[in-house]
Structures are given as structure tokens and as C-alpha cells.
């Protein structure tokens, strides 16, 4: 039997995380483990802290509480650029439960929202008061000793952020892969692009070779050829959804659709 520990604040919940105590957020990851008697869970830490659901957009910066759900994202007019991402995660019931914070820790091939945040160069505020880049967190998320309180990033300009997802089942389905990109284009040429994939590694990963190949290029078939070649260089895992080979074949196709703004 599992013990439930209730805390007023996220910081208190974070301080309790030791010796098989696991934080329970939206429930889509942890409750399934509890249901299957995961021996690594003896206690669940929960909090009613309202601050973890807050969504703010001020002065060009966006801040999303880690407890905000995909439905909360879809209900926020300030986050309309993220609607295509949230809408493609689960069905309505999952979207009412799955949180932004949970998505950062979702195992492969989940994590579409984390990939989007990676493309947005998100920085995370932790419950212990420290900050960390999302990319750094993804590299050591299995050994995290704290909890994510908030996710912050610069709001992209209109049309600067794009997302595409390929799944075997529509409209709901786990990603074969998904790709997100922030594509600043001063003077119609790409400058400082960030491109990230979900499904192309054990965590969401940046496609640095593709980012470099896009620098100074226009988003037209000739200009993106180098980026597509760069996307083929990642090393995705095999799983029940797709083979590594298939993902490597699909990645440049999905990236081309994103960069040329073609329909899925």
C-alpha cells in the first residue's frame, strides 16, 4: 500500500523526495506506475499549491506553472502558438490531467511538449529556488533532486514557432516523431534557429546540425537542403511504435514540411 503525503507548497513536497517518495502531479505517469505496484514507489507527495498552475505572459516573457495542464494551455489566449502542440497530446481526458511539468519527465516516445519548450529555449525555475536550462535538465532528469516549479521563455514572434507531429493513430496517438522549431527570420533569412525533435532520442533532443545548416538561409527548398541532411544524423531508438531506421527516414520529411510550412 502507498502512503500519501500532502503538502501546502511545492517546496515542501520537493523536500520530501527521498527513499521511494515520488511526486504526483497530473497522474498520467505516476498513477499508472502505482496501479502496477511499482516497487520504487512507497509514498506519493502531493500539493495543493495554486502557484504551480499559474500562466503569465508579460513584457515578452512567458511563464507557465509546472502544474498547468494541456487543457490549461489550450484555454490560454496568450499561448495560442502552443495550441497545436497541446492539442496533439492525448485525448480530452488526458489533456485535462497531463501537466507541463510531467511532460518534461515523460519517457520516450512521449514528450512532445518538452520538445516544443526545448525549441523555445526554455529555462526552468526549480522548487529549491535554483534555475536550470531545459536541455541541462533533460540530460540529468533521472537524478533530479528537486521539482520544477515554472517554465519560462521569450514569447516567439508571430509565425516564428512551428510544430509538426507524426503518429500512427489520428487524431490521438503517440508520436512516431514530432519536431518543433523557432525560426527567427530578420530580412527573410533564418538567424539563430532552434530545432528539436521528440522520438529521436531517449529524451527530446536538439538538431544542432540542422540549426547550423539553416543559418542565413531562406526557407525555400534549396535553402533547407542542408538542414534536412543534418536531421538525418540523429540516432533514434527502436521501439514498438517505429524502428530507428524508420524514424531516421521520417525525420527529414517531417522537418521539410515544417520548414516549408506544408500540411502534415
Amino acid at each position, binding site marked *: *500500500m*502507498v*502512503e*500519501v503525503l500532502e503538502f501546502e507548497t511545492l517546496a515542501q513536497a520537493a523536500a520530501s523526495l527521498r527513499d521511494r517518495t515520488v511526486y*504526483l502531479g497530473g*497522474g*498520467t505517469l505516476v*498513477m*499508472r506506475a*502505482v*496501479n*502496477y505496484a511499482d516497487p520504487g*514507489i512507497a509514498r*506519493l507527495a*502531493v500539493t495543493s499549491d495554486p502557484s504551480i498552475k499559474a500562466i503569465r505572459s508579460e513584457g515578452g516573457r512567458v511563464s507557465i506553472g509546472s502544474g498547468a495542464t494541456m*487543457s490549461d494551455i489550450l484555454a490560454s489566449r496568450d499561448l495560442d502558438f502552443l495550441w497545436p502542440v497541446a492539442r496533439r497530446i*492525448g*485525448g*480530452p*481526458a*488526458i489533456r*485535462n*490531467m497531463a501537466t507541463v511539468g510531467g511532460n518534461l519527465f515523460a519517457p520516450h516516445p512521449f514528450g512532445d511538449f518538452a520538445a516544443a519548450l526545448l525549441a523555445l529555449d526554455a529555462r526552468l525555475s526549480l522548487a529549491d529556488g535554483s534555475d536550470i536550462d531545459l536541455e541541462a535538465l533533460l540530460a540529468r532528469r533521472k537524478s533530479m533532486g528537486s521539482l520544477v516549479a515554472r517554465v519560462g521563455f521569450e514569447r516567439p514572434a508571430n509565425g516564428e514557432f512551428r510544430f509538426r507531429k507524426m503518429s500512427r493513430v489520428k*487524431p*490521438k496517438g503517440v508520436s512516431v516523431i514530432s519536431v518543433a522549431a523557432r525560426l527567427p527570420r530578420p530580412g527573410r533569412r533564418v538567424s539563430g534557429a532552434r530545432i528539436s525533435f521528440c522520438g529521436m532520442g531517449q529524451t527530446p533532443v536538439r538538431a544542432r546540425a540542422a540549426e547550423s545548416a539553416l543559418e542565413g538561409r531562406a526557407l525555400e527548398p534549396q535553402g533547407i537542403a542542408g538542414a534536412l541532411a543534418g536531421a538525418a544524423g540523429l540516432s533514434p531508438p527502436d521501439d514498438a511504435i517505429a524502428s530507428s531506421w524508420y524514424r531516421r527516414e521520417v525525420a527529414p520529411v517531417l522537418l521539410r514540411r515544417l520548414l516549408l510550412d506544408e500540411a502534415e
Partner: protein
Amino acid sequence: MPKTPVSFNLNGVETSLFVDGGQNLLDALRRGVGDLTPKFGCNQGTCGACTVLINGRPLLSCLVLASSAEGDSIVTAAGLADGPNLHPLQRAFMDGFAAQCGYCTPGMLLAAKALLDRNPNPAREDVAEAISGNLCRCTGYAPIIEAILAAAEVMRRSSRT
């Protein structure tokens, strides 16, 4: 380990019971309360058979900690009919042969109710999206979608009269 008392409104009836620490709401409803309409399917949030409405929103009861339902208003398929009068969705599912084995039906009904409560005039795509988290291995979905659209039409007509 001591059990935790929890109280909620289930289909209009104030309900109290004791739950275990990690017990999920599906188990509490089925074994604790005796409402067998939410179905045990995958127990991992994939199939949608356990869908219930909590405070008007569809949620997967297998992924909800039972003790967290304190003070909530919960609707299951057992609460859809008004005495002997079936809910229009239930009637449409029967008339349109939208249930074969019937195991997914309670979850489908509640996913559909959540849709029609906020969108009385849905397009076919809206219906497909609303039930996208609910698996059916019998019908191929088409009769379910048709039944939900038919129920929506009935409900719109009755609201005009």
C-alpha cells in the same frame, strides 16, 4: 496503514467512503461504492473505458488518486438516465447499434456528454476528437460518431421546445 475518509457527490448523491493510500478512483467507485459502470480496462490511461466526469470535465478515473476526489462532483454512466428515461445519448447508442460488446460504452457516453455540454452542435470532426481517447475494438467508431451526432440533434430539438 490507516485508510483515508473521502466524500464526494456521485450522480447527485452525497457519498462517503474510506480509501487506501494509493487507491485510484476507478477502484474506489467499483469496489468501494459499487458503481460498476466505469470499466476497468488498461489501468494505465490508454483505453478510456474508465472515463468519468469530475466537476464537468472528462477524466480517467484509473489515473485519479481516490483521496484527491474530496468535495468533487462525479458523474458516471449510472447517473445519465433520469429514472426510467434514458439520456438521449444512451437512446441514440441503442437505436444506432453503437454498442457491440459494450465495454467501451460508459466511457464513450461520458466523453460524448462532456462534448455536448459545451458544444451542443458539434461537427463530425469535433465528435471524433472528443472520443479520441476512448478505444473501441468492435464498432469501427462510425456508429458511435453517428449516434452522438443523432443525440446532439435530439437534444437541440428538445431544448427548442
